[in-house]
């Protein structure tokens, strides 16, 4: 796992190369690494209206994909408007099997990259005795071939 300094170096690059990366750590530390870099924070939960939640997994997945695509297409990027998109609540991507395809298809490019924020550590939570926390599950999901390009962490 690479460090926050490595991630900051990546942010500072003039151009990016289809970069969708995973940040394992706090949002606060990420924002520090982003210092001086234009960025937008986007919570996937905002794609859902609490009053009209989808009926089942399939509908949720469709709503997630469509909403994500619609949102990504509205964010303008250009050589003068380099943007890092900070995405929160990424557990939804794994839970509803959407992957990160939409980010590659409709956002990432020379002047736009994505950081998926995975705040942890989950093993520190007080789980009931009959619940076993597989803390690597989400990291493994996003680390699968051709999902995210690199993984950075607050702790090495």
């Amino acid at each position: 796992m690479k460090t926050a300094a490595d991630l900051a170096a990546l942010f500072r690059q003039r151009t990016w190369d289809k970069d969708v990366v995973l940040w394992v750590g706090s949002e606060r530390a990420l924002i520090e690494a982003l210092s001086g870099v234009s960025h937008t924070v986007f919570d996937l939960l905002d794609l859902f209206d609490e009053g009209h939640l989808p009926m089942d997994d399939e509908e949720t997945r469709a709503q997630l994909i469509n909403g994500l695509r619609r949102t990504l297409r509205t964010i303008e990027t250009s050589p003068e408007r380099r943007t890092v998109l900070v995405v929160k609540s990424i557990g939804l991507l794994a839970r509803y099997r959407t992957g990160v395809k939409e980010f590659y298809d409709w956002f990432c490019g020379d002047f736009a990259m994505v950081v998926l924020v995975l705040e942890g550590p989950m093993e520190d939570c007080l789980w009931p005795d009959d619940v076993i926390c597989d803390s690597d599950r989400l990291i493994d999901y996003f680390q699968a071939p051709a999902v995210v390009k690199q993984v950075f962490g607050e702790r090495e």
Partner: protein
Amino acid sequence: MKFRELGKIISVKSEPQTTPSLQQVITRGKARETVRDYLFTPSLRAHFKRVLECIVHRTGQGFWVQAEYGAGKTHFLGTLLDLLIWGEEKVWDVVGDAEIKSEYSAPVSKVRMFPVAFSLRGMGESSESDSLMRVFEEQIKESIREFAPELEEQVKVTSAELAARWYLEEATEDEKAGVTNFFRREHKCTPEEYRSQSGLKKFGQELVRSKLPEGRLRGKYKERFAFIYEQIATLGGYDGMVFVVDEFRSWQDRHVEGTAAYAEDEEILETLAFVLPSQHLNIITLIASQGDMPQKLSGGGEGDRFIPLYLLADKNKGDFGEIVVFRCRDLAKGAATDIKDYYDYCRKEYRFIRQGNISLDYFTAIFPFQPRCFDILRRITQSDEQNNLPTIRSGLRMAWETLGNQSLLKGHRLLTISDLIRTAEMQKGLSHETYRDSYQNLCGALEQLPQLDVAPEEREQAQRILEALYLWSISLPDNLRDGLTAQEVAEAAWLTDDAVGSTAQAEHLLEQLVQGGFPVRSEKRTREGKEVTVFSYEISATRESPVKYFAPLKKKAKEDIKRQDTKWIEGLFWQLADLTKEATEEGFTGGLFSDFRPPDARSTRDVQDGKPAVFSFPHRAGASTRRVNKTAYSGEVVVSDRWREEFGKEIENPDQHFRLVYLTDQPTVDDAKITADLQDPRIAVCRPETLSEDTREALADLLAAEQMKRNCSAPSQSTLREYAEEKRRAAVKTLLKCQQDEYRRGKVLTQKGYGIPSTEIFRSTKGREEDLAGRLLEKAYDTPLFSSKDLKKEFTDADTKKLFSGLFHKEPANAGKDAARNFAVGLELATKSHPTDFNPASSQALAKVREQVTGRADLPLSDLKAALCRPPYGLTESMVTLYVFALIKSGGFELVLNPNTGFTLVNGKALPGDRLTAHTLPLCEWNAKLDRALLGSRLVASVHKGWNEVLPYARILDADLKPANTPDEEQARNDSLLTTLAKLNVENPGVEKSMADLAAVLGGAVPQQLKEVCARLRGLAAAGSYQEFDAAARESWAEKEAFAAAYEQYDKARRLRDRAFHLSQIIGYLRKACDVDNAIEIDRLALLETLKFESLLNNPSVIGARERTFDDWKARYVQAYRKSHRAYYEVIAELAAKLETLRPKVQALLRMNSIVELGPPLAVTRGVEAELKALSNALWVCPDSTAADVAGKDPLCPKCQWRPNQKPSAEDALSRLTTVVSQGLADRFQRFKDASIAAILKKATTEGKGSGLQELLDIIQLADADRLAGVLNDDLIAFLRKVLYDENLVDEQVFLGPILQQIGPIEETRVEDAIATFTKLLTKAIKDAKAKHGPGKRVRVFLRSDDSWISPLDQQKGGGT
């Protein structure tokens, strides 16, 4: 030579986007931009043509687009798709390639393809549905929503949709009852109720779950895709579908070879690319991947599964530079002339143009970069994947950033590799840990440069040398040490020195650098047989002792026998990529059984984690031998970890002649048991001995080294990793030797105990199966039915088809003829005296076939194969088929083929009665379709049977005509001759006319004899058969030799005719060309002298040489003309610029002259307007001034017809006009300064009248003509004229009282008298007023009857009467 600065030759494009997404580039809004930005290099053009050919001919096909990361796969796919789907956006208008545009624009627009395009990158893994089929279904639905939303409700794609459709449209009453029962049980409602509550989709999903529609859901890929295709094609009116999958590598990485998922992927792709197209479904499939095509899908030929299209492959490496530069810059108008100057200079001064065979076209395409830039960049970017280093697309960014350097654009030299090093993108790459240390070393060396004992201006050159050498060094593979000669350094760093030359300058600086202790190494190398000194950059590294890490790991590995055994098996199947350089240098290309590697069930993650391979045994693969009977016999190799009885069963497949069984471990059963199990003499079993201590030692070394490498993955542990790698390399090499030793110590078992020594079989891996199988077959096939000693080469199945063509086709290809010469005698299908003529009289095999068929009305071909492809005959399957064809050709038998296979004759017609006969055999192509038709074919008895004299005459017209031995051949020869005569009939009039025209152009006359020959040939060409031809020919020419001589004369005329148009153009060009250079002019006149009609007619072979001479001359002429033409118009442009600065002054003068109140204009200025117009015409600049279009048919610029004797003549006229305008303006200024006029204007200014008047007065005061035009507009002129006019009018008052007093009372008789008096008095009053104001004024009077009279001016000021 003085070059034009780069900034005037090129313009830099806006910052390129280098990471396209397929989804975005195929949107309507991006389509034109995507196509416009695409460069069709020759190799890319060929790829496009290959795909577009399939599309316009509506033949489905698969294509595997393979290239490394960032090489342009997505842009390739996007452009192709945009051309197919966005015709309405006029994408073809912006295609940059004329050939693609002209050939495919119209045909492609007639084909309507439904696109399904998507990228697999970023798809999350999901164990239960990680299925390519599911992805395809989703993406098809997505495409329908995007491109054909009207079909969304109609087209059924998923199982749920098909199930719902089945229930609504196809289910029987009984089936519906079953469904009703299911829903009542599961949901306590009827199907209809459930559907209305939950929707059609859920309803369908429940139906699928019920399994009631099973078998009706088109579950097989083939059925499902075919059903979807039919729906879309029929309902949407499409001609076909195009599937495009980008980033397939990411999918391949998840599905390792040997897994079920991998097999599913293969099957789906095979279905789309091969199975469905072969059933006439027009499906084009394009898969883009960085990875290799699965072996099952390869083939490479038309009709095979996938045709590979490699982008930026080694043979197309020139594409890289062209594409990079195309995306970064545009050429200015006329740039070709300047680039040619650079090219000529480089060609003269340096070697790289000639060494690299670099054409002017390529030089232009990559201008202004030195070609070596792209060699080095390409190599650096090629290693991106393993090291996460600069990718190929970063090369594009480096080039663009370099061109953004203004100081370079102001320069007059090509850009070199050292110019690229300072770009941010290159810096980014060099700061990566792979290069970081060495780059810091370079930076340190550069900081030391001020201490180098060279002139200050040479330091910059020394810096370029260090940078070029450094980049050259890091671009080389790890295992290659090479350098550059001084000459190459001079070229790569563009060194110049007028005094000593570039190479000597490089030598001097390199010597200084070496002596100064800079990290430059010089070595002696041999190149092209000569010893040369090469220079390279020294990249050093630190080392530390790693032994303490390795020892404990080895100890552990030595104790773990199970891991050793697993590693042993894994090692047996190593591929070349698993080996090390040392091992390959020893001649190893893989493990002992690398060619027969079973599928590995490990995931990518398992491989990364170093988990042992999981092979599934037994694994079967193909092999062949050519050791026996000079014939290629195929067979199978079985690899297994244990012995099984099935390995010993008799070989039944006629296409298999042997079976070799390799056991990976010593078997648990003894050798006697294995020998007893063997049922066929063509089987051999090889087993190893128990592993020796040496082997176990090597295995432990290997395991320990691999573990150490994994453990030491931190960046700071590179030394440890290197040590581990060294140990691994040594262990691999040792283990490969041990593998051979263990099998040499083992045994080779056969049915008849041939006693084959294992030491000989396992001497080396090369040719092992060939040797072993050969030993088996030479004993088994001891009575072959053909004469193998007469085969001139080794005979393969492929040769059978060539031989078929050579023996049976009327006009066989060269390959067929060669095959006949090499094999026909050996196979006893021809005699030694006539090896290419079919004559099977002595064939033993044919006799055997006759023997088999005799007495049988009907003999299946498969029976024949089973009987003859076995010991002791030794015939192969294809040989038997060939002998059956020979039997048919000999007459008496026919072959009834399997109908409905689509087999047709070469003329496209169907085979009559599906029977292959002696007559139809020559019209058959032995291809895959015929192979299919032969399946199930049967041999049956047949129910059906002097040109040579004319041949000597006929051969004069066509030397390829052959003798005829049968009536069929005679007819065929007749047809050939008539074709030749028809051609002659058509071309003869043209030749005659052409000769007459050309003679007129070249100033000659057509010889009478030639006219006569043409007339006689006209008569000859009208013959309707070879007999008529013979009669007519002999009537005109009694002797064959006379006919030959006459025809030769005609043939010369014909050859001259072929070049007549070009020659006419040459003559036209030469005659019209002008004298641009003395030497060129002399050559022009000399060339004209060589182009005479009579000499060309007598010896047309010189035409080519004349044309080449002309082309050389023309290239020189064009360059010289363009430069002179440009120089002339540069002078004209300067004068025109001066005229433009004069134009406003002329306009101002003309306006001032129009103020007549100022007095008449200066006489010399009356014609300035006409002179200005004349000069404007004379100083017209040709629009092609930068590059006159004289490379075509016109030797003079078509726009201006410029000739060198035309000199700029307008300079004097311009000078004169400038003087006259100055004089005119001075005169006008003087008039304005006149006191009275100045007073008037000042007064008007004071009163605030006239916009711009104050500025005008300032200008007049300063006589500033330049500012005049900006102020003197039409309004101001009108105002000035009015003011000056008005200032000449005076108002006076005349009181009526005194006048009326003098007239007195008026009676009727005094009216006229009173009027006369009034007139006299009024006239006098006016005269008095005029006398009062002077003669220059006009006077106006107002009559008043009282004393309160107020002037009109006072009235305007507020006064009144």
